[in-house]
């Protein structure tokens, strides 16, 4: 099996199975997906601990991109997902037809991963998305 790296650092690929991880402010508990120097909510520089986020959530907004940036395959569904237990993330909705009959506000979804590229060493980049919950 080819070596794999996550597309972004807040996707963790380990023995516990692919999942999202957030930096949690030790002062106020605010979640950040990206690396921060201090907390964007309270300004504390006390530091962060990593927290595993839920694999499930609901779609709170979405669009279906038809006219995409050059080199980007369309159509695809871009959605904001509010994760069960906290955290919000933007990702594609996959494993369903990209049309408003198959994607809906409030729809329950589950994390899934897929390969989006391979580098010259044969290493695969793995992205995450959400599929309608079974």
């Amino acid at each position, binding site marked *: 099996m080819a070596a794999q790296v996550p597309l972004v650092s807040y996707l963790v690929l380990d023995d516990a199975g692919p999942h999202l991880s957030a930096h949690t402010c030790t002062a106020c508990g605010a979640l950040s997906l990206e690396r921060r120097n201090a907390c964007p909510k309270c300004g504390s520089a006390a530091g962060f601990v990593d927290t595993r986020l839920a694999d499930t959530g609901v779609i709170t907004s979405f669009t279906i991109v038809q006219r995409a940036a050059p080199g980007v395959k369309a159509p695809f569904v871009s959605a904001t997902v509010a994760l069960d237990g906290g955290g919000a993330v933007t990702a594609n909705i996959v494993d369903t037809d990209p049309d408003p009959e198959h994607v809906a506000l409030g729809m329950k979804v589950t994390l899934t991963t897929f390969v989006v590229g391979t*580098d010259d060493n044969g290493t695969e980049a793995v992205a995450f998305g959400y599929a309608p919950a079974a």
Partner: protein
Amino acid sequence: MAGDNVWVLGAHMTKFGRHDDKDVLDLASIAALGALADGGVTIQDMDVIGAGSLFNAAAGIGQQIQKQIGQTGIPVFNVANACATGATAVRTVYLSIKAGEAQMGLAVGVEQMGKMGLLGMGAGSAANKEFTPSGRDGRVMPVEGHLGTFTMPGVFAQAGMQYLYENDDVDVEHFYKISAKNHEHSVRNPLSQYQKRFSVDEIKAAPMISWPNTMPMCSPNTDGAAAVVLVSEERLRSLPKEVQRRAVKIVASVLATDPWVESGAALPDVNTCTRNAAKQAYEMAGVDPQDLDLVELHDCFATAELLHYDNLGLCERGGAGKFLDERGPYRDGKIPVNVSGGLESKGHPIAATGVAGLFEITTHLRGEAGDRQIEGAKVGLTHVIGLGSTCGIHILEKSAL
């Protein structure tokens, strides 16, 4: 005098559209010279310039404009604040006058966008030599299309859909109606890039950009410039009566950014900053939203306009759909919104947009808006959003000196 009131003395904008025969300095000069002439003053009277051109942000656009219209040695503030750049330029001049350092100043916004295509897109898939994490999210390759979209029609479609998720009695049909309204308004505005009616059915059937935003629901890329001359009340008193009569008072000038919200990292929040800015602006002006005779708000996409009926308090909380159904924002409605045609028709030359909002309100308060005039307009509000996010709001009032 510190804390003195600030007035709009002169205002001008070019027609928005394609100006292939002009460059960015031609456009800026037309707007700047037009605003100076409109106020009956010259560049020699100016104490400060606030200038913005987002796609020339590092180019010293203000100094370049001075070389076209007069190098008088006054301070120039070159500003960049995404789609709030124009409002920021205006506010820079406003603050200079408020601080007592200037009596009169020029704010100018200009953009030449030609056929730039989609804004906000990341690069497509690059050649992947060896995956190496970079940036704050440690990405190993471009994420556009793999982790949702950051193209503008998509981001603002999602912002609109979030309103539908959070509120009842509103659906995608409302977005189509908004676009039809603004295009209907545009036929009265000779300065608008497009001046063409579209039915709701035509809008639905138009080429899809990012569902539910079809092409006429998206602001086009536009060439254009706008400028205003601001003056302190003290200095205004020294000017001729006929000049004083056309001056319009700025009763609120506010910039606000987005405070932290949990979903903000997933989807830029354009709501909280608008709510906060609006609250400040109404307090500053001593004006209630129901007192507004017209509003020019940031309809970069039809999906965005709906949010701001609510954010600006034009309707009850959650009542944006009802406000539209009751024809509130039509030019014959309770609070006409985007009688200029809005960015969807008028065009959106990024840095010019915020200044053009002041031009539009000023023109109505002076009673000089021709076919699109809102009769008897006394108070108007202009609003812009720069993604990232910044909200700029100015409230203008027809007032006796």
